[in-house]
């Protein structure tokens, strides 16, 4: 369903719940992908999407129409995800063999087949594990989510220079991490 987002937001601002339902149906998947890539966990990502849309409902009157709706939504999703990330103490146990195997598949072939959420989450967790929070967010938004630098700056409220330096450091760490993981896989074959 093609929606006119300006009208939908206008309706939501006036308290129209049907319009809000349409908004959720249209954008929840985008929000989920973003949350999942930050949290690497399906259930946590769903919780964050739910919290984010409740916040959107509550603060829709503060939405500035000059801003892209998705940028505003991603900002809310990221803030909720950061809260979740900080409050979540438990860590999933990751099967390194399985992750390395998947990484080798990606490395050797152009992987166009879908892999399970859990495996995808494990790959992201493992390669971004240990990154400082800012570096992780910049890396996920820029390289994995594929947003442009300006949008990343707006969502994370960071300067262009800060985004660049955090991204550079994150990429160097990820490069080293991947190199180790792939070397591990070669040794175990």
């Amino acid at each position: 369903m093609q929606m006119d987002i300006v009208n939908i937001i206008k309706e939501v601002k006036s308290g129209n719940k049907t319009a809000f339902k349409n908004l959720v149906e249209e954008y929840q998947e985008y929000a989920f992908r973003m949350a999942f890539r930050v949290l690497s966990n399906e259930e946590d990502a769903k919780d964050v999407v739910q919290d984010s849309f409740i916040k959107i409902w509550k603060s829709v009157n503060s939405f500035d129409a000059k801003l892209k709706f998705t940028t505003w939504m991603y900002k809310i999703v990221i803030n909720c995800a950061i809260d979740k990330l900080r409050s979540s103490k438990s860590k999933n146990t990751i099967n390194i063999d399985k992750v390395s195997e998947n990484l080798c598949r990606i490395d050797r072939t152009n992987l166009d087949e879908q892999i399970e959420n859990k495996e995808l989450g494990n790959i992201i967790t493992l390669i971004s594990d240990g990154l400082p929070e800012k570096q992780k967010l910049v890396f996920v938004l820029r390289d994995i989510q594929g947003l442009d630098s300006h949008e990343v700056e707006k969502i994370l409220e960071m300067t262009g220079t800060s985004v660049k330096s955090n991204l550079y450091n994150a990429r160097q760490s990820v490069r080293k991490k991947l190199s180790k993981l792939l070397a591990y896989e070669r040794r175990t074959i």
Partner: protein
Amino acid sequence: MKCDFVKRKVYELFNSNIKQLDDEIIRHIDNCPNCNAHYEESKIAKKITSSLNQLQPVLNNPHELTNNILAALYELEQKKNSASIRFFTITKRLLAAASIFLIVVFGYEQYIIVEKLIKLEQQISTVPGIPVNSPHYQEILSYYPKQGAGFIKTGLTSSIIATQDNDLKSRFMIARLGRLSSEVVSKRLLDQLVLLRISNEEIDIINSIKNE
């Protein structure tokens, strides 16, 4: 050529708009094992992150998530409504309690004032030279020219409380209390001044008059 420079160019190749490396840099990478490893690692990292960008996490049961969001919204609205109702109920009860408190306090105040006035009037009535219907009563009543002051201008507090409505009584009592108190104080001061000025002979005369 320095390795740091080469590594920076390799980074730019995979992450910026550089299309290809200069021949000199390529030759360095071919001959330097460290830079060669760096180049290979960067290439793999780029390929994997690009693939991760293509691999989309799948939202299973999107309808369930939509329903959960709407249910959470409904719950939020319910809470908001019940919070408003609770607020009004509490406010209503507080106002009722405050009203009762004020009625009790002012009722008690009025009772105390009336009691004090009666006692004061009884004491004053024993003092010679202060008639019950002295002019200050009339002055007090000038606050209420339409209240039939003629009836109460000579009345004592004890008789007024039985005949007048509450509003008039309260205001009248307060005014009268102030007036009578100032009357007593001023009389005492006057007595002291008089006593200071009179001679012993005059004191004898006063005492003889009192005895008569």
